[in-house]
């Protein structure tokens, strides 16, 4: 566990949404569940840079996998977690968002994780009540597709002009 201080309640954090996480606009209820669910902190990097890191860390072409992102407020997440009641005994349960920077060449200084383990029920409640922004990318062709089309178009033009 990181020795760094917990993320402040005012902070916003980003979670990438992959095509495996969403069907018919319904996000996988367990997206935020588990031990050490990953987020990126907007207090460290801009959204643009975080999305660039997401795309860098995904297989090519990343546009096929990354279909959107969710922004959460740390304070709101904690509030929902405290208010969440299930049939399980949750005495002493306190959600924390801890900075866990990933070092190295392909690191992410903005990386953070939730502790302790988030159950599926709580994850569902967080998705329902703690999402600050839900952004889905439009199904436009990826940038490299566009460039490929431009290159093909230029080649055709060149062939036509040279044959004519």
């Amino acid at each position, binding site marked *: 566990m990181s020795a760094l201080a917990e993320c402040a309640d005012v902070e916003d954090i980003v979670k*990438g949404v*992959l*095509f*495996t*996480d*969403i*069907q*018919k606009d*319904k996000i*996988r*209820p*367990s997206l935020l569940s588990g031990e050490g669910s*990953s987020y990126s902190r907007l207090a460290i990097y801009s959204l643009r840079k975080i999305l660039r890191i*997401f795309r860098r*860390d*995904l*297989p090519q072409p990343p546009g096929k*996998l990354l279909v959107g992102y969710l922004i959460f407020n740390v304070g709101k997440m904690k509030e929902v977690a405290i208010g969440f009641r*299930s*049939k*399980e005994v949750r005495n002493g349960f306190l959600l924390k968002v801890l900075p866990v920077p990933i070092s190295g060449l392909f690191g992410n200084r903005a990386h953070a994780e939730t502790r302790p383990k988030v*159950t*599926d*029920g709580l994850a*569902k409640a967080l998705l329902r009540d703690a999402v600050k922004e839900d952004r889905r990318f439009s199904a436009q062709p990826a940038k490299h597709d566009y460039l490929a089309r431009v290159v093909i178009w230029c080649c055709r033009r060149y062939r036509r002009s040279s044959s004519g």
Partner: protein
Amino acid sequence: MNKILAYPTYAAAALSSQTFGSAERFGQKAEELGVQIISPYVCRFEHDLSFAPSFEGALLVSEPGIAIYQRFFDADSANYQLDQPVIELLGFQSYQRIQEFKRLRPGWSFGEGKSLSARSLTNMEAFLKKMAATLAKFSQPMVYLNAKGEIEMLWEGSGDTELFVRFHSDDLDFLVSPGDVEGTAGLKSSIDTISAALNDGVAV
């Protein structure tokens, strides 16, 4: 000595044109025929079955069993073929998604995603077959894949009724809403708990 790797009930199907119905029944039959069950997946046959009259011709009609044998032990889920009734329960869109999941290579989820687990698919298939009657009351499921390569499914009923299931290789996690009934258990026990939770005042 012949050696076959298969789930007992399926091993029976693999060796005979008739299925014996249950693992216990197969156990009885196996004893009569000198088939030793080493583990749920490993059975050893003490004699050459092709000479056993009761199994004569059985190996010729063992294609489904052999297919299941291959599915169980083929580490690559890409070759895993879902049964037709299961595909119907899934719906075309969800089936297509599973086909897409099969194409994902290790590291697909920010460097950490595992390939789709064939054992998770087997578990899912068994669950769908056993719960077919109950699940028919829900709309067609939504299918997801987690970074561990496990299939997760969500069924939506009327109102707030939802059933979420995550298929591990041996057991499954479930969440029934409303009421947030959560748990992890084996197939039979999970089905009992889910059915009870759905019957407990949850109008599907």
